[in-house]
């Protein structure tokens, strides 16, 4: 039991937080605990969650990625472009994901080979990718996408009554959970974040691992973007603006240390849920949007404070 607690200490704080907020909301609004709303809530968080999963890897290596929102926008725009050009949806989506992978890899290369601090490197690419999106879309949303069932499915579909994006999120969560917990790659991610020098001297190819981590994040961002595109029936040039903040918040609320080397992807899922619950709840309670920001910030702070042991 003690072992269980110490193993999971980092996620107990946020978990309690989540339960707490949910209960409060359930009491305050009877529309909260309806099946409809729960599914609705899960579908809403799936996008942030997918990005945050990638961000978890990045932050575990003691990095950060501010460009996720722009990658999301550029990836979806290009995918939408392919779709409107009549390409087979699945192929278009696949190419879109590859593009995300490449954009992420560029981040990784700048950071490792260029030896630029992740924050500033991705701050720059964030701007560049956004600009590229605007150039490509000429500042207009791309519409008239294939109304193929497959593509609609991605964002709007249901499987056994569960929204498809939610399934996607859960499957990918499962995979990444396994990768972090049980694979050599996962172990290397933690080691690099914990002490890069020691990791390298232990024969870990830190640069390569990092490049993969950023590539993964890029790909997940585009995947999130594709879901968004499918849901919105269009790719927006301004899509994903400031998504990086919600993603980072989810990771950190989930108990992952920004210093790297410590954290769990379960925590990130919980973090994304907390943020989702806050947004959903504030709407349900019809809190004025001005106060919403105050409340949201306050709750995020609260969630992290519940978890202060970690942030030491």
């Amino acid at each position, binding site marked *: 039991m003690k072992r269980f607690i110490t193993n999971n200490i980092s996620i107990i704080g946020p978990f309690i937080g989540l339960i707490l907020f949910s209960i409060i909301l359930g009491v305050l609004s009877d529309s909260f605990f309806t099946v409809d709303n729960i599914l609705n809530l899960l579908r809403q968080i799936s996008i942030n969650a997918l990005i945050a999963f990638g961000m978890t890897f990045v932050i575990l290596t003691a990095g950060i990625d501010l460009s996720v929102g722009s990658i999301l926008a550029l990836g979806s725009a290009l995918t939408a472009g392919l779709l409107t050009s009549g390409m087979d949806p699945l192929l278009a989506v696949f190419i879109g994901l590859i593009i995300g992978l490449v954009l992420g890899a560029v981040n990784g290369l700048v950071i490792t080979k260029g030896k630029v601090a992740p924050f500033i490197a991705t701050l720059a690419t964030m701007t560049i990718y956004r600009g590229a999106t605007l150039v490509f879309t000429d500042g207009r949303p791309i519409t008239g996408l294939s109304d193929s069932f497959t593509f609609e499915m991605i964002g709007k579909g249901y499987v056994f009554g569960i929204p498809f994006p939610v399934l996607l999120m859960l499957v990918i969560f499962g995979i990444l959970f396994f990768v972090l917990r049980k694979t*050599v790659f996962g*172990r290397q991610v933690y080691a690099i974040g914990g002490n890069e020098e020691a990791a390298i001297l232990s024969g870990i190819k830190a640069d390569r691992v990092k490049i993969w981590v950023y590539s993964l994040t890029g790909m997940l961002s585009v995947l999130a973007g594709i879901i968004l595109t499918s849901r919105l029936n269009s790719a927006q040039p301004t899509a994903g603006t400031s998504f990086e903040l919600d993603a980072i918040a989810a990771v950190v609320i989930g108990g992952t240390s920004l210093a790297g080397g410590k954290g769990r992807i379960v925590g990130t899922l919980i973090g994304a849920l907390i943020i989702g619950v806050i947004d959903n709840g504030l709407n349900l309670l019809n809190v004025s949007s001005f106060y919403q920001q105050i409340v949201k910030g306050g709750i995020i702070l609260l969630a992290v404070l519940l978890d202060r042991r970690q942030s030491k």
Partner: protein
Amino acid sequence: MSETPLVEMTGIDKAFSGNQVLTKVAFNVKKGEVHALMGENGAGKSTLVKILTGIHPRDKGQIKINGEEVSFTNPKQAEAKGIVVIHQELNIIPHLTVTQNMFLGKEITYGKTGILNHKKMKAETVKNLHALGVSNIDPDDLAGDLSVGKQQMIEIARALATNAELIIMDEPTAALTDREIESLFKVVNALRTEGVSFVYISHRMEEIFELCDRITVLRDGQFIGTEKIVETSLEEIVKMMVGRELGERFPSRDHNIGETIFEVTNLSSKEGLFRNISFGVRKGEVLGVAGLMGAGRTEVMETIFGYRKKESGTVTLNGKLLNTKQPSNLIKAGIGFITEDRKTKGLVLGSTIRENIALTNLSTVSTNGVISKSKEKSLVNELIKQLKVRTTGSEQEVKSLSGGNQQKVVIAKWLGIEPKVLILDEPTRGVDIGAKKEIYSIINELTKNGVAVIMISSELPEVLGVSDRIMVLHEGKITAFLDRDEANQENIMMAATGGSKA
């Protein structure tokens, strides 16, 4: 003589999260004495010091200074009472210059203005370093660019500079070579005659008997006893520490040595830290590497291991040319490297013992990328047992291990790869006498099984005791190769200080 001791600690208890570290420890220091504090790794020496200076709160017990009860809550208060500490872990701030480090927290200012008096501090720094016989450190150098040894000298100078009544040194010489130690002792002796007291923690027996007046021994956090040096003997102290006879200090080396398997030819450093290094190591041989602090020994090894860029030169194993672009290549080839600085280069401090040991052995404990818990556990527990790591279990964070036990973890992670060639850089730095012997016998075992060993050490007795052959470096050049039987302290020091080839 019943004069009140300068410091008197009685009935000190301390536990870290349930793990009892000190029980009923009594300890006192008289004015003007050098008092040795001895004990195995994890015995609780550093903890006792940290309690005295208010870094850790004590669970039970009493602390008196000049007879009056005190309980500090931060080191500044202790310093105000004239107690300064040189901690076991280096407390140097890498991006600050030597001078800035020297006066950290006690900057010299113009009156109360808070405005710094750079000139004065710089002058003082030079003075303090010279007092220690150190002249090769520029007060404007960034401390982070200096070798561990030089950093240690800065900390010592910093402590000696304060006109303290009691100076506590927690393994100050771990990173030093004989020359620095000599000058350190000179200063200590001088201050002692001026009535300054010292607490001296070290795992180097010779030093204790050379320097100290009294000695207190801890074992497993228990107070074992306090003796006058003149009334005791090395054997007795060791017995008090380990609880049993230890026997011969160095295991006998009587096995045959094979042909040369590992060869380094004309290796030169890109940073110009060394030039044209050529040497070979034979199957089952221990090549000792001696030299003064800053001679470049670490750099040579780090370059061989692909961690630093080489200018030119080749490294071959069994005649096969090795690619020294990155460490992973050499590890694959079967070469292990136990780094000098375990905290920054050896361990992932925040991780568990298991994760640290597994790090070099990921390929062996995994099948196509997936780690097998059982394989990992068995390997790790196997090694923990083999090296007698003092721990609550494989899930303990290495952060919370004592210095010596951390070192054992580093060695463990490299034994896992079953290396053909093992490079050890200061492998017994901060390791207690019992553990040292264990490490020596591990080295022995390895060589018996045909492993070629390269061992950097700044402890001459160790170099002499363990090596079959000794290579001496001076300012990045090889100045001598000495065989076991021709080598002695004198000709090694001669070569190390750049004297003509022996």
